[in-house]
């Protein structure tokens, strides 16, 4: 990646970066003496207050690729990107807090795969544990690679030094203080990300001339691309037809594909985020964790999507801010945030902005690493390799897993530099494996008749259906291969995003149908073994004595109402 210029750091910027690194390591060091048992290390001894687990729940997902990717989508598609927040994340977060957390937390499972073992059987757990562990290693590898490339291009740092050093710091603070250290640092990183990016939005918006001037300039962009003037500044109005909006998606695919299947699948079943809630100090705190996360999540479009829209408006109206272009003439959309940082921030703020970027890389990586070491130790090592391991041995294994998990991530990062296609291919495979998961959990938690054989077969069928749908469909303008169509062409989609939503819907449908069908043919577990794991066999948690904003259901409803209001406001 070559850019037109390079950022020069001054002394004050270096100081700010060093202070950050000193803080994250010190937090790990201070927590080290509390790590006495494996539950301390992997579950923070279930002792953390809800505001901390809530912000960590949000921050673990706030990796730099997420931040830069959302800004890129903001530039490419405009305000419709906010659907990832207001239709995608927020309802799913409310659902997991109100309806699913009683089973995750109440069952005392130590991980999401372990819940599957309690609810279904060993093979369902094994399938989920192995694919999840592999996925976390590859995603942290890919994000390490992305960070190395960015720091090299932006600051002229050495690629190897960049990724080795940041991997070292994340490794150090998790090795010392386990999940607690990762969670505490994620909250610190959350505040730094907000502190670093907020002034950027302020300056960008001031430069472009406020919201109405932004809308006017983006109106010109929309018209020049053949859309109605409001296409970049409306969330729903142009979703009546895929041809009317730059995303190439219509409302049904948006609601079902993104809103229902994809985001519920991620926020409700991904151990990376669920682990944060499991570390909460009480059932009530665990249920409030995703709800507390949903409140800032709702406002995040202002911080991550708005900069993309600003960058696009400035670039298209010939201001002195210009997004860099690739060799083929298309924009480097992923560079929105780094380019805006370099454009507006003087020495001082520049250090804080880079710290925010580094913090978001680290929080995403730490989320993957802590989820990996837990699943490896509890669901693979203790389950299949050494069943009789003592607790102190598991604690030691957790530290070792942190080291070799990070080592494997580094290996994956270097593989990515050599074989970019392999990584694209693997990400695709993981997407197939993940797509049907929500159907399995939904049936598992709310239908006591669902059986282990049914769940396992459903997961396989859903994964195959995802692969088959991808193999038989193509986004417009792509050639068969990694983008789809490798089995022949049965249908085509207006955009890659629409194709993804379609794949998700097929995977969910296939998993749901096969799980139900096979469950009816196989013997269910007796009710006594499902107590605490299934809705109809679990006592409702007592919460009447708390004020309304501490009770999950009214709080969840208030959050949903706010999300509806935001959708209406930016209709």
């Amino acid at each position, binding site marked *: 990646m070559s850019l037109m210029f390079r950022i020069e750091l001054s002394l004050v910027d270096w100081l*700010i970066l060093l202070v950050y690194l000193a*803080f994250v390591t010190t*937090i790990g060091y*201070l927590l080290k003496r509390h790590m006495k048992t494996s539950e301390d290390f992997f579950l923070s001894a279930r002792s953390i207050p809800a505001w901390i687990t809530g912000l960590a729940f949000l921050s673990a997902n706030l990796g730099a690729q997420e931040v830069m990717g959302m800004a890129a989508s903001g530039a490419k598609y405009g305000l419709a990107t906010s659907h990832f927040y207001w239709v995608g994340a927020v309802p799913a977060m409310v659902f997991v807090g109100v309806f699913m957390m009683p089973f995750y937390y109440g069952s005392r499972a130590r991980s999401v795969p372990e819940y599957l073992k309690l609810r279904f059987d060993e093979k369902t757990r094994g399938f989920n544990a192995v694919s999840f562990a592999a996925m976390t290693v590859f995603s942290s590898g890919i994000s390490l690679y992305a960070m190395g490339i960015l720091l090299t291009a932006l600051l002229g740092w050495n690629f190897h030094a960049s990724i080795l050093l940041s991997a070292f710091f994340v490794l150090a603070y998790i090795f010392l203080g386990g999940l607690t250290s990762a969670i*505490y640092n994620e909250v610190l990183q959350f505040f730094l990300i907000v502190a670093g990016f907020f002034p950027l939005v302020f300056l960008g918006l001031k430069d472009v001339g406020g919201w109405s001037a932004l809308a006017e300039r983006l109106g010109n962009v929309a018209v020049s691309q053949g859309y109605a003037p409001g296409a970049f500044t409306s969330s729903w109005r142009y979703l009546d037809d895929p041809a009317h909006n730059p995303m190439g998606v219509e409302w049904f695919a948006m609601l079902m594909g993104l809103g229902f299947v994809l985001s519920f699948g991620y926020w409700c079943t991904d151990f990376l985020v669920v682990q944060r809630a499991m570390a909460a100090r009480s059932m009530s705190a665990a249920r409030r964790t995703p709800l507390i996360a949903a409140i800032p999540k709702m406002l995040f479009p202002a911080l991550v999507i708005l900069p993309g829209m600003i960058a696009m408006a400035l670039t298209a109206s010939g201001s002195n801010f210009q997004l860099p272009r690739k060799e083929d003439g298309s924009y480097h959309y992923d560079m929105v945030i780094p380019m805006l940082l370099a454009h*507006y*921030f*003087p020495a*001082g*703020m520049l250090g804080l902005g880079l710290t925010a970027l580094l913090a978001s890389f680290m929080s995403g990586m730490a989320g993957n690493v802590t989820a990996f070491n837990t699943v490896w130790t509890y669901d693979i090592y203790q389950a299949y390799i050494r069943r009789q391991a003592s607790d102190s041995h598991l604690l030691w294994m957790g530290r070792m897993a942190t080291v070799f998990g990070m080592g494997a991530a580094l290996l994956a990062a270097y593989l990515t530099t050599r074989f970019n296609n392999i990584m694209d291919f693997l990400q695709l495979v993981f997407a197939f494996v993940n797509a049907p998961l929500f159907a399995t959990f939904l049936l598992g938690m709310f239908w006591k008749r669902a059986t282990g054989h049914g769940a396992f077969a459903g997961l396989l069928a859903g994964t195959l259906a995802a692969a088959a749908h991808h193999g038989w469909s193509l986004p417009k303008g792509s050639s068969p291969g990694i983008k789809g169509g490798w089995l022949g062409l049965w249908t085509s989609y207006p955009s890659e995003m629409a194709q993804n939503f379609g794949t998700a819907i097929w995977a969910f449908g296939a998993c749901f149908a096969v799980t139900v069908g096979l469950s009816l043919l196989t013997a269910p577990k007796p009710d006594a073994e499902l107590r605490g794991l299934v809705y109809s066999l679990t006592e409702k948690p007592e919460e009447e004595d708390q004020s309304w904003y501490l009770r999950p259901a009214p709080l969840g409803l208030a959050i949903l109402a706010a999300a509806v209001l935001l959708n209406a406001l930016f209709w």
Partner: protein
Amino acid sequence: MGLDLRLPIGLIFVVYGILLAAFGLLSDASLYRRSLGVNINLIWGCVLLVIGLFFLYSARREKAR
């Protein structure tokens, strides 16, 4: 769990606040051409300082109780 998280958060915001505000006071105005003439270091430094002090204050109050 042993460590009140508000302490490190408060502390890092206070350190950054002082660092940025001091640098903003001492640095040359020409540095701020790129930030549209706004001395963003001074302004944001003061904001961070206030937020940091608030975190430290609330941690202290909790401890006193």
